[in-house]
């Protein structure tokens, strides 16, 4: 190994602690460690990243348990509670956005719907869209990125051209436009899940060049390394080199950039819902709630702060975890 990455590892962790761990009682000699083990060790020490990961896990749990949580602590998402809102001003009767022991996050102005239930279901939508579209971007990005980097020639110049083109594109505008021409309901999925799939397709499609570019670059440099040459001289064919030699080495950057694209996707989904082309009402989404809050934020700021705060916490948690993961897997790239 070269000296470069080694030097920056010791920068982050105190040398003494590291040395002590290397010669822990169980190990007699300096054991060779896989990248996975090294990264896990580094990640465990990064308290901020672990904190981010905990919040992410907590949010995923909330999204999965949404129906249960709503039953336990909330009210059905579409149940109106006119008694909770002031008939003349349409604002919640109780202070702080109508927070009471019964409505723990308060109620919506006008309708009096339970904000807690809508936040919990919004988490479900938001995370589903973010994860699935990140997954789609990754698959496309890895497919085209490795193809471009490995095959080279006209394939590379074609794919690179398309990636440059997509990156130099009014993306948000296009997403809005594309989402609005695609049908509201299809395949009998119902309005909520049809829109979720449309959002996944659109967000996932515009996201792949980011991963594709990185994968291409990495493949280009890996292709020239000695171990690939060695495999080839031993008679390995292209598919074997691609899957057994190159892809395992690409796993780290792919994992990092997939993690880092998730918060971006959450923001894009919320933005589209905020602009009224995302998840259609009355289905709950954080962006949609913020857009409803535009009319009320001057008199009922809690209605805006709760969904906005949720977006902030979620995105921040993913960013912290993603940054930590990147530092752990590749301390040089910073």
């Amino acid at each position, binding site marked *: 190994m070269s000296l470069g990455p080694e030097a920056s590892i010791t920068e982050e962790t105190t040398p003494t602690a590291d040395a002590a761990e290397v010669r822990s009682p169980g190990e007699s000699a300096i054991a060779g460690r896989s990248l996975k083990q090294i990264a896990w060790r580094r990640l465990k020490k990064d308290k901020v990243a672990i904190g981010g990961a905990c919040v992410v896990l907590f949010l995923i749990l909330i999204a999965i348990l949404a129906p249960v949580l709503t039953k336990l602590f909330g009210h059905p998402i579409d149940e109106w509670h006119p008694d909770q809102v002031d008939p003349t001003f349409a604002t919640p009767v109780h202070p702080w956005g109508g927070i009471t022991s019964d409505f723990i996050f308060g109620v919506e102005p006008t309708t009096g719907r339970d904000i807690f239930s809508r936040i919990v279901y919004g988490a479900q939508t938001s995370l589903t869209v973010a994860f699935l579209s990140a997954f789609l971007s990754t698959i496309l990005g890895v497919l085209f990125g490795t193809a471009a980097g490995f095959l080279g020639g006209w394939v590379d110049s074609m794919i690179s051209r398309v990636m440059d083109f997509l990156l130099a*594109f009014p993306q948000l505008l296009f997403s*809005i436009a594309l989402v609005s021409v695609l049908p509201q309901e299809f395949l009998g999925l119902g309005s909520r899940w049809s829109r979720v799939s449309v959002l996944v397709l659109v967000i996932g499609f515009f996201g792949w060049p980011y991963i594709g570019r990185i994968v291409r670059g990495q493949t280009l440099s890996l292709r020239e390394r000695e171990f690939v040459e060695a495999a080839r001289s031993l008679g390995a064919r292209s598919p074997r080199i691609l899957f057994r030699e190159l892809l395992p080495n690409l796993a780290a950057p792919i994992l990092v950039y997939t993690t880092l694209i998730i918060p971006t996707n959450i923001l894009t989904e*919320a933005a589209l819902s*905020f602009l009224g082309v995302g998840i259609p009402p009355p289905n709950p989404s954080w962006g949609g709630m913020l857009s409803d*809050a535009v009319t009320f934020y001057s008199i009922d700021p809690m209605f805006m702060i709760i969904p906005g705060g949720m977006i*902030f916490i979620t995105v921040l948690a993913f960013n912290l975890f993603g940054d930590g993961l990147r530092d752990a897997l590749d301390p040089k790239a910073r």
Partner: protein
Amino acid sequence: MLAYIIRRLINAVITLLVVTLVTFGIFFGVPKITGSDPALLYIGKTADAASIEGIRTKMGLADPILVQYGKFLKGLVVGRDYSSGPDVIHCPAPCLGYSFKTDRLVTPTLLADIPVTLSLAIGAAILWLIIGISAGVISALRRGTLIDRAVMTGALAGVSLPIYFTGLLASAIFIYWLEWLPQGQYVPFTENPGEWFVQMLLPWITLAFLFAATYARLTRANMLETLGEDYIRTARAKGLRERTVIGKHGLRSGLTPIVTVFGLDLGALLGGAVLTESVFNLRGLGYQALDAIRANDLPVILGVTLIAAFFIVFANLLVDLVYGVIDPRVRLS
């Protein structure tokens, strides 16, 4: 150099052609596949068969898509006429089309929106460059200190805060709660510069905060990388003052990557800051695009997309040209 510029210009034109073709395909092709009729979209569902047919011939919607696209391109270069029977609407070049929803030509409508978007983008850009770069440089020079950690925490929070939240939050705090800023609408600079400034202040600051966070992170990373280079050590070793080392040798190569990002960001913003304009009710290009999408006003959507793509492509070109000047390693050829 001249050959390079010409080649890049040709490339830019090709990119714009592809963008319009794709946009055209989406708005005139997708409805065809999914079975909805663009003519119906124009005029609304209540119209009778005769007027739908009228729109169809007037707009040339009965033609194949490629023919329609050809007519659109021709209109861009030499202008075109829309006619069905007695009334003829002349659309002078560069003709982006005619909106039947609002009965207006697209080009003048969009030209009227550009000053708003321009005010927003330029003002915010000045702010975020100053704040973002200085925060990043200070953070890099004071690496590991309290200032560095504070700046980086703030920057991370900044990149995680969407403008549709911070914008509302800032309005709630500064306009309604503290009442430091007045409520109101956008006022053109030419009408009342003072009022223009006051009304744009909050959009500028909110938008700049978002970008400044990204730029601070980027600047810090670049500066740290540059300061670790051998030539910085050499500059120090030959006895240069620290200020010269940082200011002359460090900043120059530490900030070149920022130029690329800045060009692209500014280009993208000029094509319509959809979210910011929507939050602050600024009737610029982005707002117009959103309005058009909600009303299914296809010619306006097409026009905005083309203008937005034009700004992005133009910014790209400009960045590459500027790069040849500021980065001596890059030779344009």
